[in-house]
């Protein structure tokens, strides 16, 4: 990245990924974390309320998808709600009106997120830094107003009473716990995909572009193609999260395409830890838990969130997981 505040932030984070190469010990650690995560996902619904957990998982995937773009390419998209929300509308519409089975509904939502990503990404990566962020924001606002006015989205009402249906036409998802395991599987799939992307040769090139774009160009990489590819991967995963959320809550509404959702996901990523694989999910868990348990405070939740964000930026800029990574001297 060459200019703008975004680039400098990305550069700040660079040492974590750049100095400590993902060695053997780190790989072992990551494997253990993934196994631990799977174990945790297995036990969690018997301890906590499954619907709450599913919400956390959807947002964790969303935040991770967003952070893939910001953390590993230094591209701050301020319009990720568009892909998340649009996918959730399409999934809801597909399940309710077209009578799709849930897996097909989720797939069609994801597909729309991907296509939207191709178009918006192609436009947005032509600019860098703050201009890139502004273009993504503008495009996502267009999507928002489209959703307000379009017939099929139901305006302020949203698409309500979306059937959860039967997975593959066989497994009834009406039971929260059954649905939970489906969502957990989707989440794990998404996380492993993100992990693979980051640690693939493609991911290495992305990091190179993030840290020094002119050098990457001089080495013969077609930088914009790489950026677009990562942008689309990120929006596809964001779409996957949004589509899953629509099936879980049986509802797609304007909240999901509103710009504040784009802001929330930035918050989740920064609280959890920018440039870490596991940070955004921790951030999402923290923010969603707060919204859930502080719901009685009403609008004050936002104030509390603001304070936490300020505290986070002042006290530990690396985020929660970033802090651990620093202590362990291992990328997480």
């Amino acid at each position, binding site marked *: 990245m060459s200019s703008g505040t975004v680039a400098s932030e990305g550069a700040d984070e660079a040492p974590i990924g750049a100095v400590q190469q993902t060695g053997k010990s780190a790989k072992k650690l990551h494997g253990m974390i993934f196994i631990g995560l799977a174990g945790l996902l297995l036990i969690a619904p018997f301890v906590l309320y499954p619907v709450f957990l599913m919400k956390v998982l959807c947002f964790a995937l969303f935040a991770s998808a967003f952070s893939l773009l910001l953390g590993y390419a230094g591209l701050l998209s301020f319009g990720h709600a568009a892909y998340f929300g649009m996918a959730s509308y399409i999934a809801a519409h597909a399940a309710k009106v077209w009578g799709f089975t849930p897996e097909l509904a989720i797939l069609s939502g994801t597909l729309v997120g991907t296509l939207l990503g191709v178009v918006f990404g192609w436009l947005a990566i032509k600019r860098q830094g703050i201009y890139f962020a502004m273009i993504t924001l503008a495009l996502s606002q267009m999507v928002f107003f489209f959703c307000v006015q379009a017939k099929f989205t139901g305006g302020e009402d949203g698409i309500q009473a979306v059937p959860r249906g039967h997975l593959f036409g066989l497994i009834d998802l*009406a039971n929260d716990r059954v649905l939970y395991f489906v969502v957990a599987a989707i989440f794990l799939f998404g996380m492993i995909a993100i992990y693979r992307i980051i640690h693939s040769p493609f991911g290495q090139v992305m990091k190179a572009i993030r840290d020094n774009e002119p050098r990457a160009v001089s080495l013969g990489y077609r930088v914009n193609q790489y950026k677009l590819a990562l942008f689309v991967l990120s929006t596809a995963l964001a779409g996957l999260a949004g589509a899953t959320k629509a099936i879980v809550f049986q509802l797609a509404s304007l909240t999901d395409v509103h710009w504040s959702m784009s802001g929330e996901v930035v918050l989740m990523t920064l609280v959890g830890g920018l440039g870490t694989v596991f940070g955004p999910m921790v951030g999402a868990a923290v923010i969603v838990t707060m919204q859930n348990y502080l719901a009685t405070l009403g609008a004050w939740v936002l104030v509390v969130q603001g304070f936490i964000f300020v505290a986070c930026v002042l006290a530990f800029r690396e985020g929660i997981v970033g802090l651990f990574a620093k202590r362990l001297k291992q990328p997480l």
Partner: protein
Amino acid sequence: MKRKTLTAAVAVTALLAGGSAFAQVPVKLGVLNDMSGLYADISGPGSVVAARLAVEDFKPESKGIKVEIVSADHQNKPDVGSTIARKWYDQDGVDVILDVTTSSVALAVSDVTKEKNKIFMISGGGTSDLTGAKCTANNVHWTYDTWALANGTGSAVTKAGGDSWFMLTADYAFGAALDRDTSEAVKKAGGKIVGSVKHPLSTADFSSFLLQAQASKAKVIGMANAGSDTINTIKQAAEFGITQSGQSLAGLLIFSSDVKSLGLQAAQGLKLTEAFYWDQTDATRAFSKRFAAAFGGKMPTSAQAGVYSSVLHYLKAVEALKDKDTTKVMAKMKELPIDDALFGKGSIRVDGRAIHPMYLYEVKKPEESKGEWDMYKVVATIPTEEAFRPLKDGGCPLVK
């Protein structure tokens, strides 16, 4: 030693089992509405106070019922509302959800309630679809609905000479339903709709919409919106000189709290339909004084009064049954006649609509008012049979 423990355990179990025979029926009521946004004055924290007063008056302990009240803010967002409803039903053991202003949220909560087979008693929510096309066996729509408002205000104003209308509609479920029902009422009374415009929920600037309304040359501008949206419309219409130039405003959903914040100077002459006004009878005055004492001197709105009455009716049904099984309680509530201190005599129909008289009021002129809260005078009483949409017209699948 082992045997002793066992005996003790058995004894304790027996005691507990014996105890439960006299145990009270625990019921949990959830008041879900807009606690901080544009509809907070209409229902908001006041509805929680109303629910508490109802429980206080019912004296449930002496009747074998233990009541607990919880409340939450749905921020006028369907997703927030349905998430809270789901959590309340699944996790917190809530039996009944009350109030729920904002029709889009009410419809979302209605879906969740049906899925979980609990009870939903709507007071603040307005769309007549809740007892029409989208009715469920779990809904009781207590206070008012869009059909009743349109029928009251729409036909009264049209018959009084306002025969061409321009509709200014809030762009969500409630606005759409109110627009539809009003248009029907106006046409039925011999008027016509010359145009309409939709505005987003919670708008601050109505100028472009009001200019369209002004250009339409309609005699009446029908405001199919509510809360602060209506207040803003009325204030800005005055600034644009619309009311002075001969076009009149018809408020289709105006609560006493709205008139209070507008002031009589701005609101005078406005005709509106309501199910409840504090200064109706001795009983409503007595209740309202108690309510005001508990709620910082504010008189109850009809939505808040509706929460009070629906809680009483629910508790009566539970008392009669000594049970809170949803199907039984719903049947009992529909069987018991409503004889309510605040809403008069009525009943709950098979589609979940609670019927009672409605009133057409006119806002007093400042010089007519004798006190801070003396705001309305009755123009007409709409009898129970005519106040609500006929059962057969609603399209509710429960009506056979």
